[in-house]
């Protein structure tokens, strides 16, 4: 053991130039603190015998200070004057009814000061070495560092063990509560695990279903649209087409084309940040499900959404869609087919007014044979309300007319992407979170409702 400690101390103090306190030594070697103190003393002696001044020590002195100079008892005078240390402190200033209190001093002192401190004490209870260090330390804060280090290096032990090894005063009644904090996973996972599967499956199935089936579904829904909102069928349908356009793109991923249309892009970037919120905002399934199935399965879905897996799947879905959308939009921008549509971006409602050419184009799509129709991309005029703070601190609302791209075409393949909103519709859909529920509740085709909200 002796070689053990001396080699450890030599390595640490002489080679690494580190300070070693008795506590550190006891923790390092797993020995009693009092033993560690002895070792430190021995080490200090032997090293200094070999070469004077090679090793420096600090001591901890406990004792009773001389009563005449109670250094801790600087009386504050009635007039708030603190008696300076140089001025004689009269014990008489102490309150008469304040009895003399036994004071014990615990003083940490460097070896240079040791004698002085010893003299200041009336009675010395103990002097023991506190730490050894390679040279005189300027600041005892270095020791404080070592003490802090102690806590970070050595985990706190069990109370009983601690007292057995290090000699800490034993307290039999210490009970460390068991149990790390309960694991965070929410309990829903187990509950809803049954739902996870269908949720995952459905998007797959819908996407994989033959184009014919999905298109027929889309046709039906389109018909429904007509039935429900006769007034503005055309406008609606064009919108719908816009939605359904994405599927085509999704099926064949396109390389994003970078274009310097800052205005247009920025107008999209305004709306896009809202999309990621979709999963949290709507507890309803992503639009694709709703569009596909009209039956009860859709009604169950909202519950399913709570499952984490479903959530993740959905987010994945949404992210993918968003990417697709972006690509789509970029592509749209390339072929400039202008269809000015006045939109109020602030209330995310789109004016149904469309350019004549557009409406002219849409009738074809309205017909229940849209599957084969080609996709159309275009731009439209959008009136946005921009709110800014001017230099006077007033909020100024301006109406700005901007061009935005949109696409409208009929996707023949999957009905699922029909729901896929482009930048505008996505916003609309998210904002109308109750949409999904409503659709389910009415039992009617969801697409109608979705498109209803779009148009508004």
């Amino acid at each position, binding site marked *: 053991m002796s070689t053990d400690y001396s080699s450890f101390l030599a390595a640490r103090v002489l080679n690494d130039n580190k300070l070693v306190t008795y506590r550190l030594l006891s923790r390092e070697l797993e020995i*009693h603190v009092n033993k560690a103190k002895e070792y430190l003393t021995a080490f200090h002696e032997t090293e200094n015998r070999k070469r004077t001044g090679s090793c420096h020590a600090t001591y901890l002195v406990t004792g009773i200070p001389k009563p005449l100079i109670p250094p*801790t008892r600087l009386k504050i005078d009635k007039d708030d004057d603190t008696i300076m240390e140089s001025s004689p402190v009269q014990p008489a200033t102490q309150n008469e009814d304040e009895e003399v209190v036994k004071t014990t001093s615990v*003083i*940490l002192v460097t070896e240079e000061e040791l004698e002085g401190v010893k003299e200041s004490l009336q009675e010395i209870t103990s002097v023991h070495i506190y730490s050894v260090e390679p040279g005189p330390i300027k600041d005892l804060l270095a020791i404080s560092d070592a003490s802090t280090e102690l806590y970070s290096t050595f985990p706190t032990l069990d109370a009983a063990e601690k007292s057995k090894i290090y000699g800490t005063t034993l*307290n039999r009644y210490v009970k460390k509560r068991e149990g790390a904090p309960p694991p965070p996973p929410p309990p829903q996972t187990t509950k809803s695990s049954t739902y996870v599967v269908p949720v995952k499956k459905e998007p797959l199935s819908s996407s994989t279903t033959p184009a014919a089936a999905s298109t027929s579904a889309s046709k039906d829904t389109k018909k429904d649209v007509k039935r429900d909102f006769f007034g503005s069928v055309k406008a609606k349908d064009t919108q719908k087409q816009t939605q359904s356009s994405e599927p085509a793109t999704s099926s064949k991923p396109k390389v994003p084309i970078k274009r310097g249309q800052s205005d247009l892009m920025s107008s999209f970037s305004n709306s896009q940040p809202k999309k990621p919120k979709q999963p949290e905002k709507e507890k309803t399934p992503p639009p694709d499900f709703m569009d596909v199935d009209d039956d009860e399965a859709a009604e169950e879905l909202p519950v399913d959404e709570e499952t984490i897996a479903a959530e993740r799947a959905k987010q994945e879905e949404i992210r993918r869609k968003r990417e697709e959308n972006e690509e789509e939009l970029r592509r749209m921008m390339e072929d400039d087919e202008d269809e000015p549509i006045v939109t109020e971006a602030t209330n995310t409602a789109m004016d149904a007014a469309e350019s004549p050419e557009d409406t002219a184009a849409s009738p074809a799509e309205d017909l229940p044979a849209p599957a084969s129709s080609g996709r159309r991309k275009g731009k439209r005029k959008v009136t946005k309300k921009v709110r800014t703070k001017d230099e006077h601190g007033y909020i100024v609302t301006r109406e700005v007319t901007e061009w935005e791209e949109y696409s409208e075409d009929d996707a023949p393949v999957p009905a699922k992407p029909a729901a896929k909103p482009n930048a505008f519709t996505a916003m609309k859909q998210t904002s109308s979170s109750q949409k999904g529920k409503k659709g389910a509740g009415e039992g009617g085709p969801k697409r109608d409702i979705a498109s209803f909200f779009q148009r508004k």
Partner: protein
Amino acid sequence: MTSEHQPFERHQTVYKTDPQFQIDNHSYQTQYVDIYFLRLAQLKPTVEEHGRERWDDLEVHGEPVRRVDRVLDVRQGELCWVAGTVYMDMPLKPNVLDDIAKDHFISVPPPRQKYRDFENDEIMIEDESGRLRLVGSKIQKEDLVTGCIIAVMGTETASGEFEVIDIVFPELPPQIERPIPKVPSKTKTYVALLSGLNVTGNIHESIETHLLVEYLLGEAGSPEDQSKSSSISRLIIAGNSLSEPHAQATDDAATASSSRAKSKKYGYDAAAYNAKPTTVLDTLLTDLCTSISVTLMPGETDPANASLPQQKMHPTMFSTAKYYTGSTFIPSTNPHSCEIDGVRFLGTSGQTIDDVFKYVDGDDRLDMMEKTLRWRHVAPTAPDTLWCYPFQDLDQFVIKHCPHVYFVGNQPEFGTKLAYGSNEQVVRLITIPKFSETGELVLVDLETLECEVISFKSKSGVSA
């Protein structure tokens, strides 16, 4: 290795927390006015009893002293006595209207040390009926604060003021006798009192704090010291364990905010939070809790509610020490009341006396403590100048049972004395100094109630 050193065993004491200062429902909807009614209702019978004892059948110049029920019933020229709440009308006292005016000051005047101004202060006594101005040398000499319940005897002068001849306080409440062994036991058992650790979380935590922990754990010193340390059965930390949030954080915040000026945040910025002090305190507490029971009271600078009674600091803040809750880690309220081996302790983290200090002339904090005991109220100046909870059913600060040890933390210096009541009550009063300034730990002998001080210091060759 361990066989040669038999570890010392911690002396055990029975600890009972008094839930007196716990607030169960935090409703701040109500008005503060009720507190004064409650207080008066609780203490008036006591004061009147003392008044009757003192003044019944008393005649001054052949005129009998008459008791008056309400302050407004006092008749001019009649010798009478009445009980009520003291209100100190002090121009120097902080005032809500002044606070508003402060917004227009070029530089805000520093907060006052004392509110007392003998020339301009008016001392009043009030109850639910009205107010009466008190005059006379007797009342001027007596250090009173807003909110204490007293009874005064005298006459109303021609100018409508009440000339006070004599005063009566509620005096010390009844005390439950503490168990004193017939034969003084050989082994002493102590309770350690500490306040104002002011842990900053800086890299250089004060070495004295470490010495303190080592001493309490029984690691420092000779076996003799260790044996003494093992006789300290528990530690009560009376507030201000953490120092006030430091200015250093603002620098970081400034640089950080410039870098992310775009993402402007409103309200609380979690990035500015410095967890270091709590973490350091947590490690210290965890270390202590393996060996000694620690009662942790919140103080002025601690992360607890600011208004008295401060509620327990939440154990979650102490991520490792919290595992000792239920055994050695006891977060408690401020003020805190408990019973240790039959000895009743009552203590605050210092705000109460610091506030009384502003009202009275002089610096004798022990005297102020004694006064609060005689007023039977821990925090008489609440809610006037001290923040407090708007009690609805009961003024919890009224002292119902006289403690055996009454301590106040975070005082400028250590002090102790005994206060004696008329019914053989004896109370040990202790002012606990701030550890960060003095390095002093106070030990109370549970048997004799005598105090000892252990002072932790460091002396380095260069700086000394």
